[in-house]
């Protein structure tokens, strides 16, 4: 049995269904499972689960499911080093969003990560404290700030409404996901010129650590063949599975 998880609600779910339907794969809700289980017509070897986008990322990392569709931002946050853990099979062309570093528009002297580095260092030196970065992307933030050689900051975990943190006074800088930038602008924030951490979209991803039985491999090969007849999707995945 091959297990595949897709988002259980929202635009991501609708886009997924449409994407499968375009490729002749029709989803059927399993009766009595309260909408958390489904299957594909004519594919008894594939079990479809409906999970939240975040759960899909963590289930892939844990090896609890074989395949999943979720945002690349969540996958990379869950597993900063994908190698040996997850394999991105195919970007799906929907669910576009950028993970970005944003600061107050009033910081007119700050346009780049290098400027932010200066401001962070000056603040730490003067206040003997570090500037706070509110985010739900702690891993991506840490990686990106290290890449940009910024160390005088600290991360404040944010569960939601991250864009409000600077105005609320709970953080000075944010790292958040944005599609149009409107929410950021409405909150008086601006994206740094070189502050795009990740250009994300929905990905069909595989867990490398899941239990890939011969059955699961066979079902996966036939499913991927159907989803992209011309592409070498399965061989590329199989190479990762050893």
């Amino acid at each position, binding site marked *: 049995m091959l297990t595949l998880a897709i988002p259980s609600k929202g635009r991501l779910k609708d886009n997924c269904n449409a994407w499968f339907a375009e490729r002749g794969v029709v989803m059927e809700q399993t009766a009595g499972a309260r909408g958390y289980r489904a299957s594909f017509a004519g594919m008894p070897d594939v079990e479809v689960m409906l999970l939240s986008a975040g759960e899909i990322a963590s289930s892939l990392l844990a090896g609890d499911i074989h395949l999943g569709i979720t945002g690349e931002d969540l996958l990379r946050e869950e597993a900063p*080093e994908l190698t040996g853990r997850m394999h991105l099979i195919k970007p799906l062309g929907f669910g576009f969003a950028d993970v970005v570093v944003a600061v107050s528009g009033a910081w007119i002297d700050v346009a780049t990560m290098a400027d932010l*580095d200066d401001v962070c260092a000056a603040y730490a030196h003067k206040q003997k404290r570090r500037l706070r970065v509110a985010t739900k992307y702690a891993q991506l933030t840490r990686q990106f700030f290290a890449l940009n050689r910024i*160390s005088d900051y600290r991360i404040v975990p944010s569960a939601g409404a991250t864009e409000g943190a600077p105005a609320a006074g709970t953080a000075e800088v944010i790292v958040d996901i944005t599609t149009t930038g409107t929410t950021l602008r409405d909150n008086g924030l601006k994206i740094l010129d070189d502050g795009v951490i990740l250009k994300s979209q929905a990905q069909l991803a595989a867990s490398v650590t899941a239990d890939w039985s011969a059955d699961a491999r066979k079902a996966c090969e036939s499913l991927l063949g159907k989803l992209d007849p011309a592409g070498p999707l399965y061989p590329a995945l199989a190479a990762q599975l050893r």
Partner: protein
Amino acid sequence: MPAFPYYDSKAIDALNGQAVSLLGLFASRGYGREEPAVLQPAEIFLDRSGEEIRRRTFTLMDPSGRELCLRPDLTIPICREAVQSKRSFPARIAYNGLVFRHQPGEPHRPTQFFQAGVELLGLEDRAAGETEILSLVVDALKVCGLSDFTIRMGDLALFNALVDALALPAGWRSRLKRHFWRAGYVESLLYWLGHGDGKAKLPGTRDEIEALLDARGDAPMAARTREDIITRALDRAAEAANLRLDTKVADAIAQLLDISGPAEESLVKVRALLATAGINLDPQLAAMDARLATLKSLNIDPARVQFTAHFGRNMEYYTGFVFELWARDKEGPVQIAGGGRYDSMMEMLGAKKPVSAIGVAIRTERVLAAKRGGK
């Protein structure tokens, strides 16, 4: 070492025996042992230490939601206690205990290991403090029975003094100092200084900047004052307009950062380069000479002492003299001790005035491994 070490009775006896000898030596030099809690409030480490330590710190939540961590280091809790209990200085403190480090992507490295070390806090005579710590670590390895090791030294103060001697705006001087320990990056900054685009990205007058700021009246100030933003914007505009470093000087610094090798030879090269660039760093170089003299008096073969100009420890709290001791175990070279001066730490932890600080930590398990497998 496996990720989760198990010490059998032979291993733990050897470690304990070595620890008793080390602590005995430390005590004979006036360093009393202290022991901070293993579980610490996370904030102090997340706020005060560099990204390298933070990345490696195990954090956890207590049932009430308070963020805690397993101590990644003993220096910070010891220094904090010295600040909070208003210790009289100089204070000499020894420790021997476990520290915990996350080793992302390196499953063969242990997530916990023992460190034995000392902190010397508030000794005004910095040269005396350095002599004391160097002698102590050399004697400590002697007590452990390890004689085959090399020493690598550097001095952040040397680079800082060099940068201060340059005709650069304050912002640039601070940037160069801050990134000194990042190999390659300082060189690229120097290159930029020689060939920068010189384009002003912000308007140059105060009125223009104030108008820009007024136009963003509804945006949060996010912990900065209006004056702070205006001042920095003016500085940036001014420096972008006339930022250049003499090519001769930039070249000399780049060459200086490249110097690495036997200490005595290296310092001759440093002096020659500084003379070419017309920069005087005699006090800093004299301090380096004094450290070499100390090591000589301890019967360390000068050939075993290396100077690396570009040597900054990757824990950013060091501020001056830094050193590492290296030996070999059966797998190759291994760092067995490291330390240096961290004069800004005590103030960072709340001391009302600067307190000089220098210390060293010995990786005792590696010392045992080097004794076993290095031959």
